[in-house]
């Protein structure tokens, strides 16, 4: 077992009840910096709930969360963001009528130098260049940065949303990125793009938790696979030590839980 300081994220004994329904039971999860963990499971297994616990949207009934060895308690997504956790939601939350550069730099707009900047005038040119640089660094392909994002295809929109979180998370020294179904409804090329982005993020020492239904994505992007079944963790294994059939067995419940996880 790694020492706590070496873990980016460590959950211990997480229980969560929705009324009498137990949505998560005694979940332990460790993620190291630079590691990508895929969180798999059938619908209703609790993977999205677990992601919401990490992002601060849900408060666990019991259990502790540690970020880089420090105990934290999240009351809202803002608290988790302050601790260096960024979540990319399925609904993307883009401002449709505005262009990529504006969406990417929302909340950290670049102002002009001099008196005009003091009263809040934007430096559109600098914003466009900054957006271009950030997008290129992440390997996202977007036709034009000045087009409103509503005119982009689904994959490119996903790219913009991912890039926005990725940039924010990489500005922090030890970031944690949470992805909720990043490839749902994407075409082939865009899936590859998202996959490469995830790998690039992990390579730059960011801890990634990936919730997905897409097994090929999990196998190609993740270092470790964690399977939830009916609110319990049934498998936690390095990607290289398992295979598709085993994982499907754990997801459907056809295969018994790993030793020590019954």
């Amino acid at each position, binding site marked *: 077992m790694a020492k706590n300081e070496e873990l980016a994220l460590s959950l211990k004994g997480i229980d969560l009840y929705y009324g009498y329904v137990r949505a998560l039971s005694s979940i332990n999860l460790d993620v190291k910096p630079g590691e990508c963990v895929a969180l798999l499971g059938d619908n209703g297994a609790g993977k999205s709930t677990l992601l919401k616990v990490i992002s601060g949207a849900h408060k666990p009934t019991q259990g502790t969360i540690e970020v880089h060895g420090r105990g934290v308690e999240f009351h809202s997504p803002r608290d988790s*963001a302050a601790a260096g956790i960024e979540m990319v939601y399925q609904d993307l939350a*883009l*401002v449709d*009528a505005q262009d990529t550069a504006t969406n990417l730099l929302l*909340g*950290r707009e670049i*102002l002009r130098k001099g008196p005009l900047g003091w009263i809040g005038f934007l430096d559109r040119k600098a914003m466009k260049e900054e957006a271009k640089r950030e997008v290129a660094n992440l390997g996202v392909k977007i036709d034009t940065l000045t087009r409103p994002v*509503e*005119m982009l*295809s689904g994959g490119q929109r996903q790219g913009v949303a991912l890039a926005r979180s990725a940039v924010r998370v990489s500005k922090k020294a030890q970031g944690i990125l949470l992805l909720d179904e990043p490839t749902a409804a994407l075409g082939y090329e865009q899936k590859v793009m998202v996959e490469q982005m995830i790998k690039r993020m992990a390579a730059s020492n960011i801890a990634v938790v990936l919730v997905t239904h897409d097994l090929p994505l999990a196998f190609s992007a993740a270092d470790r696979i964690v399977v939830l079944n009916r609110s319990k963790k049934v498998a936690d294994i390095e990607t290289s030590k398992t295979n598709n059939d085993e994982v499907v067995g754990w997801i459907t419940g056809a295969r018994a839980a790993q030793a020590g996880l019954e």
Partner: protein
Amino acid sequence: MRKPDTLSLLVFTRSWGIVILFAALFVAFSAWGFPIFGTFDNFSLILGGASISTIFAAAIAMGIFSGALDLSVPGIAALGGVVMAKLMLSEVNLWVAMLAAIVVGGIFGLANAICTLRGLNPLAVTIGTLSVTSGLAAVVTNGPPLFGFTGLEFLGSDLYFGLPAPVYVVAIVYIFGTIFLTQTRGGTRFLAAGGNAEALRRSGVNANLYKLLGFVLSGVLAAVGGIVTTAFTSQASSLPATGSLFTGLTAVALSGISLAGGRGSLPKVFVGSIVISEIASILAIKNIQPFWSTVITGLLLIGALAGELAIQKQVSKQVVTQGTAANAALAGKKEDK
């Protein structure tokens, strides 16, 4: 590649449709209303006639851009006008009276914002405020319109370079508004708050602050409209000019946006407002009953929204088709290898 051309054409229509409509109507009406319509004097009349409702259009536009249809605009305008008139009749300095009207507008805008941000339905809240403000305006006047104050001509009937004073108020409002919306950080966030407040929130920006700003700007501009109306007519009536609400809303719809918020351009709202005035002008020239202009305004409002919806649907369809085509091409390429 034919498809992207369709897309560009659709986007072009949405962006510039109102300007084309303005130009087309201008040419058509100049011919139909020859020789009166196309003259500078008539154009000055069109601008002057449009100016007050153009100010109200700005008030409504600011609300819609930030995501809320503010129906209290006519009430706040009436209250602002009578407050100023009452103060002037009580020998209060003109500028102080004007400032008081603007402050009243800001306060009621703020009240709208606070109620809405607490989760009340903005339509219901602003209708309530419309009733409250027009009631209060009647309390101030105690019935008939106030008149007999002087010194407001410079903002009302006076001409500068052949154009009536309210036209210049419109110019100031629209120029500053446009600079705010397009060039500043505040404007970008203001529009983002109307388009997707959640996106703003997740970026660590206080979205409610910008929603609040929308209502306050709407209230302040409504009060400015009330001041100019009072100056132009030399009297202050407590009756809210609800007609200005309809023309204002129509001007916003004509500018080519859905009323869902998050987008919009003031210069196009201005052109939309002028189009409505153009129509009123040709009806007057052709001696057609002016009531028809109200009918046409309503039809324009519905027509503009229907057109926008149709274009929006086509655009989505085109974007999806393009995306799928690109994917199919790529998947095919992969299999070839």
